């Protein structure tokens, strides 16, 4: 089921990313990076990969062993865990792309206070966090990754455990295939969970 979901997420991402304006010439074959799209700089950094981004990241997704993201330079697809660039295109989706599938994750702000509470559909226990969630994603309900301004957290609903993945915060997160990725405004980090 998970593989099927991954494949569906990948298809949705690529279908959305392939939308181009009528005036734009047809896209080159996926595996060939056009010379105009510079490859992102990828470097291992401790237990994670650091991938430099250009400008704002509008899409971040993990499907199968592939990390995809869109930044000012275009759509990039990288292999995990190597970080090898698999494909690049200069077109990015113009609208939000459906991401990981699975139980719905809800984030609420009790009393409109300073902190949020994360809830996973079908899980009775809630997960209070410090600060407001910037982005969140569930990998089939097994793992929830939440980014705040100051942290990236991995929540394991079954065991009610949480792991801090980053202490610098992030604006976008993705999870899938046992990996988490987040964008902190300057670079994307991908880490095996």
């Amino acid at each position, binding site marked *: 089921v998970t593989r099927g979901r991954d494949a569906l997420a990948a298809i949705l991402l690529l279908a959305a990313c392939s939308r181009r304006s009528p005036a734009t010439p047809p896209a080159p074959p996926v595996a060939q990076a056009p010379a105009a799209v510079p490859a992102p700089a990828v470097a291992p950094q401790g237990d994670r990969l650091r991938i430099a981004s250009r400008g704002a990241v509008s899409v971040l997704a993990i499907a199968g062993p592939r990390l995809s993201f869109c930044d000012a330079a275009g759509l990039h697809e990288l292999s995990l865990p190597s970080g090898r660039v698999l494909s690049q295109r200069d077109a990015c989706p113009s609208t939000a792309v459906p991401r990981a599938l699975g139980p719905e994750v809800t984030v609420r702000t009790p009393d409109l206070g300073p902190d949020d509470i994360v809830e996973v*559909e079908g899980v009775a226990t809630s997960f209070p966090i410090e600060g407001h969630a910037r982005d969140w994603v569930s990998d089939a309900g097994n793992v929830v990754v939440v980014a705040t301004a100051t942290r990236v957290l991995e929540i394991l609903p079954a065991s009610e455990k949480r792991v801090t993945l980053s202490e610098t915060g992030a604006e976008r997160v993705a999870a899938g295939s046992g990996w988490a990725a987040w964008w902190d405004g300057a670079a994307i980090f991908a880490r095996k969970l």
Partner: protein
Amino acid sequence: VAHFVNSRGARISNGIVNGGRGLPLTIGVYGADGLSVGPNDPSIAGIARSGGADKYGVTWFQLTGKRPGNVMVEAKMAGSVWDFFQLKVGEPTYLGAEAAWAMGPPRFNGCYTQNPNEVPTKRTTPAPGDVVTFLHQAWSDLTEVGARTLTAQFMHETGNGQSCYNWNLGNVKCKPTETTLPHMYLKNTWELLAPAAALKLVTESQGLGFLATEDEIRAHKWSRRGGTVIAVFEPPHYIARFKAYASLAEGAQRWMSHHRGVASRFSGYLAAVNAGDCVLVANILFRAHYYTGSEGDYARNMTAKKAQIDRQLGSARS
């Protein structure tokens, strides 16, 4: 007589106004017709007019500091200065609501943006009896007493429904990318952050964020943890974006489904709810991390709300 006002409409003639380098400041001139308005040294600050005079006869401008220094901002005609104030340009502190230069009222039929999925923010205060009826019908395991107990929990969480907007029970948020769902914005969404993180976020907020002053903290009854400052975000910043629902039934689905989940995990929960045992309900919800405040306060408030509902609706059917 023509005179300068600040963004709140208070007169600032002859005064000193603090501005930040690169931080637009909204100022107005009452009776600006025929006047030339601007700083007398354009290397220190620039000015841009934002349309014509409003219904009060005030023409609005954005004044942006270019480099640290003091400059006179004048409204003049043919060499005669009608009014002036001094702008002191320094490094921006982002302190106070004035720093959120892009903040304003909803401008598009009650909305802050032209996104067709944004709906005007409105308070939706359900009558306790309606919540009881809805719960009783939607969850067959609940007795009349049980429906009243959960209604008491709802009333406690939302301040008798006064803090419930667009049927969003519990202030469910939208992700930054969730602009295709019905949503609304709430003002003064605040967060406790380390000073450096707060400054970074406010700087990047494109005029929709500021750091709260001590006066603002007192006025809003906000509180701080040690070593933190309060960053405030205003519509249409995504941090201030929340889901909007069309009805109580739609908005209550997630809330009710979560309580069903608690009932399936904590064996005594449904019995406690149906017995009207607010103390035990508050205890189980605390253990489920549903809330983080004081368990005693939660239980006391729920008990009081339940008594209020019972008084209002009369004795419960068994």
